[in-house]
């Protein structure tokens, strides 16, 4: 356990000095404040409190931002050690590769959690300051916060796996950007295109819900929109959320971090320094 904690502490220190902590905190804070300000405009017509609207916007933001931050922090984790030449010495030490991964995950997840707490805290503060009823949105915000951290864990694990597979930081960075584009941007576009082409047939009714659950980013969005009942405030894929039970999207966001870490461990085990 000491070995894992020491690894986590060392990684956190490195991230602090490489400005990753500052970048993550500032990004989340700025985007949350902007969304909280923007979210304060259309509340009247929807009949929901200001914070719930902000949560719907924050959900859409987090789907893009959290995976991006997670991949940016993780793509260098193993490939960087291999390129710097620090990996052979590390692996000669009596520490299991899984312990190395868990230590790194703890540090990176702590940074993400700090960023999420800061961003969401600011958003909540601003919403409640302008609208007393916004307190009603706090449970939804809390749900968004912890599910964001889980989403981050999934993409951190995926980033470690890519880092171990490519063994060079440049290659790992390319793969990470590809994964982000694929899962977060192109996947949804492809689904929408398929739905339009399908016109209410087998794909829309059977395959589409499964396709949403299989993608961790979509499952995250689905879970938060279903749970908060804020589908009215969101558009697009969100409208499909009603058809899928909450436990299914919850299972997806709980299982994905474990699966991603498993993949990372398997990929790391194959690395020969």
């Amino acid at each position, binding site marked *: 356990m*000491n*070995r894992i904690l*020491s*690894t986590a*502490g*060392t990684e956190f*220190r*490195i991230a602090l*000095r*490489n400005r990753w902590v500052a970048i993550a905190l500032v990004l989340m804070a700025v985007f949350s404040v902007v969304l909280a300000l923007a979210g304060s405009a259309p509340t009247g017509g929807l009949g929901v409190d200001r914070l719930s609207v902000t949560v719907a916007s924050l959900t859409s933001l987090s789907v893009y931002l959290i995976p991006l931050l997670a991949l940016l922090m993780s793509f260098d984790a193993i490939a960087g050690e291999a390129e*710097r*030449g*620090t990996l*052979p*010495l590390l*692996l*000669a*030490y*009596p*520490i299991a590769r899984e312990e190395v991964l868990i230590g790194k995950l703890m540090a990176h997840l702590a940074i993400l959690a700090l960023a999420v707490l800061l961003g969401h805290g600011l958003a909540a503060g601003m919403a409640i300051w302008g609208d007393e009823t916004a307190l009603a949105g706090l449970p939804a915000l809390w749900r968004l916060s912890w599910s964001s951290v889980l989403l981050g864990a999934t993409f951190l694990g995926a980033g470690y796996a890519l880092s171990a597979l490519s063994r060079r930081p440049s290659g790992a960075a390319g793969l990470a950007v590809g994964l982000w584009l694929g899962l977060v941007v192109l996947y949804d576009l492809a689904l929408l295109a398929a739905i339009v082409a399908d016109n209410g047939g087998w794909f829309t009714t059977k395959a589409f819900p499964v396709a949403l659950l299989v993608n961790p980013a979509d499952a995250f969005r689905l879970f938060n929109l279903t749970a908060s009942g804020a589908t009215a405030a969101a558009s697009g894929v969100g409208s499909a959320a009603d058809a899928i039970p909450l436990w299914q999207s919850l299972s997806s966001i709980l299982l994905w971090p474990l699966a991603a870490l498993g993949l990372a461990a398997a990929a790391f085990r194959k690395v*020969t*320094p």
Partner: protein
Amino acid sequence: MTSTLTISALTKHFGELVALTGVSLSVAPGERVALLGHNGAGKSTLMKIILGLIPATGGQITICDAAPGSVAARRAVAYLPENVAFHPSLTGEEQTRHYLTLRGESPGLAMGLLERVGLAHAARRRIGTYSKGMRQRVGLAQALIGQPRLLVLDEPTSGLDPVSRREFYALLDDLAAQGASILLSSHALTEVEARTDRIVILSQGRLVAEGSLADLRRRASLPVMLHITARNGFANAIAQELPAAIMVDGALHLSCTQPEKLKTLGRIAGLGDMVADLDVLPPSLEDIYSHFSQGGAR
């Protein structure tokens, strides 16, 4: 006492490339063994297999009765990689504290270790600002953690100045005196000459020679060079007496085999006043090394 490290018939292939062939070697507690060879002779590969970083294709290795790469073996072995590197954002102290924790030792020992390798003054500076020699010292400090039974040091003195090298070997002597086995690699025989108990020469993945320096010198039985300086005007006369000699800048150079050495010296002594001076040059360490490493290549 049993050996700390035992290797038998070790073979390693990288696809088509044969990196090591039938290497057998054992290192006893307290013994200092130097592994010599050209670049690509298989030194680093052998070390990585001992550490369990890469698997062997064939053969057996045991380290303190454990398999390479097992937790027990990794606890017993310290490693200093060639061109050791650390994360540039960490300070020497932070890095050493981390390594101490990984070995289950108290991180508070870090400053003491850095002091031992002469790096206490820079302990709180980032490793990114260190020179190569300073990084090498951090590498050495981490290899001293937790009284390892076997130290595997890959070109440990590269980047160190002559004074630091001497200090480094003094540290190794202390460790060996406490019973640690040391396996270190080097390009240069001159450097490890007086500092190791046994020398192992690898060439193209084969172990071509093993023994103390005196053993190797005897076995190589390379010719001895005799440099004869003639008294004024007698050079030609001496050349006639010793037809095998070659004239170089007015001196006569004569090469003779070990068994003929005394006989030849007798003949030179018999020349009396014609000889002004005589130098006997035994084969150099580099000659001995080339003899064995090229012998393996053939």
